[in-house]
């Protein structure tokens, strides 16, 4: 089992969610975050003064998936979240050692 964390554009959330539905991996957890990478910040003006806002709003998507679903899920996210412009975000894969479903105390792959 792997943990996949993807940082995507906020307005891509719905497309990505639907795409993950279609490949049969609906389970996910979403967090509102802010980030910076290569995308440069934006400027806001208040009473004639410019403020550089360098952290831009993003959405973090977290999914636990079976080992052999990793490729499929990563590809699906990468594909559906892409605009081709700087700021599209990243996907990170990290190892998972155990999963428990709280409702039933099932463990392991079944618990996802």
């Amino acid at each position, binding site marked *: 089992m792997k943990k996949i964390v993807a940082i995507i554009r906020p*307005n891509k959330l719905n497309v990505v969610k639907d795409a993950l539905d279609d490949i049969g991996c609906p389970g996910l957890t979403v967090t509102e975050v802010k980030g910076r990478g290569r995308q440069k910040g934006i400027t806001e*003006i*208040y009473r004639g003064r410019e403020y550089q806002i360098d952290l831009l709003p993003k959405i973090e998507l977290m999914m636990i998936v079976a080992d052999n679903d990793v490729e499929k899920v990563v590809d699906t996210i990468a594909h559906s979240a892409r605009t081709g412009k700087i700021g599209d975000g990243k996907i990170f894969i990290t190892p998972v050692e155990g999963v428990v479903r709280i409702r039933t105390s099932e463990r392991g792959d079944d618990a996802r």
Partner: protein
Amino acid sequence: MVDAALNSGDTAWMLISTALVMLMTVPGLALFYAGLVKRENVLNTLFLSFSAYAVASIIWFIYGYPLVFGADFHGVIGVPSDVFFYNVLESQALYGSIPTSVFAMYQLTFAAITVALISGALIGRLKFGAWMLFIPLWLTFVYLPVAHWVWGGGWLSQLGALDFAGGTVVHINSGVAALALVLLLKGRRDRSLLPHQLGYTIIGAGLLWFGWFGFNAGSALTAGQLATSAFIVTNISAASAMLSWMLIEYLRFGKATMLGAASGIIAGLVAITPAAGFVNVPSAIIIGVFTSFVSYAAISYIKPRLGYDDALDVFGIHGLSGIWGALATGIFASPFINAAATGLVYGNPAQLGIQVLAVGATFAYSFIATLIIGKVIDATIGLRVTADDEIQGLDQAIHDEAAYHV
């Protein structure tokens, strides 16, 4: 002596009524709308109402007021005089028992809210520059003539059309204009109505209800029995429509919603507007109860079927409840409330015919004239923002600011 007939009580009432109607737009309507939109469009939504009020404030005193209330020119428009309000303040003239200037100022607040109302249909995708151009064009070519027809001694008033406080001039007019623009603008990419902060909408609804007492009871132009009567029926129609909207939701879903109740309040206030100085309490209850059915049906059945994207339901609520109110005025106007008007149920069916005519004429004129104005703006500077701007949200994209910072 000029002040001979000035009545300080009437003047006090008109001063405060004017302030109340101002409050309806700024910040009442602005908040009502802003609570319903996405977090990313809040400031732009507020801005549309504020800028409508500001631009109307200037235009009205430069040339708007005389075009409506100047000497009638063939029933179509007023004769412009007194531009820049020249010599009106100085002359200390009276309009009945109140200063002419307070009447002019009071009327300005109606012009301003009428334009601001339209913005609710357009949020999330309208160019700001297009709006800044639309305000003067629409005021000049649509609001001023229609207001003259109905209130300034124009052809509709000559025919005897009844519109106590603006069912035709304000609500049908703005609702239909909203529909016309929406057809040009096309729908938003994301049409969901998930209010980002309903509390704003509730503050807005409260201020609108409060301000509407100035709108309707102020239209009596005196502080006496007629104002009182308009005040009472305004309140009871709003309450009835709120409860009937709740009932509809309850029958359909088993639950009533706060936004539904707020929508009912507005529909009830709109519907009683043309009738406020003409009907009694039982008629006002009927007008209020029924209007929620009209607007609810429009929003839930007709809009999805026809597919136009009237974002915050300006046509559905102001247009259609306005039409119902205008017709209801022809049905329920009681000569015992106001000797000036007799409706169908008191034996004057002709009044209903006149009301139909006024509704039809306003609808047709507002729709066509707004379409033309919209087309012209679209062909010159364009009506719609880029897809990128729409997706990013207008606050950031076209104003470089954000409503919230953590």
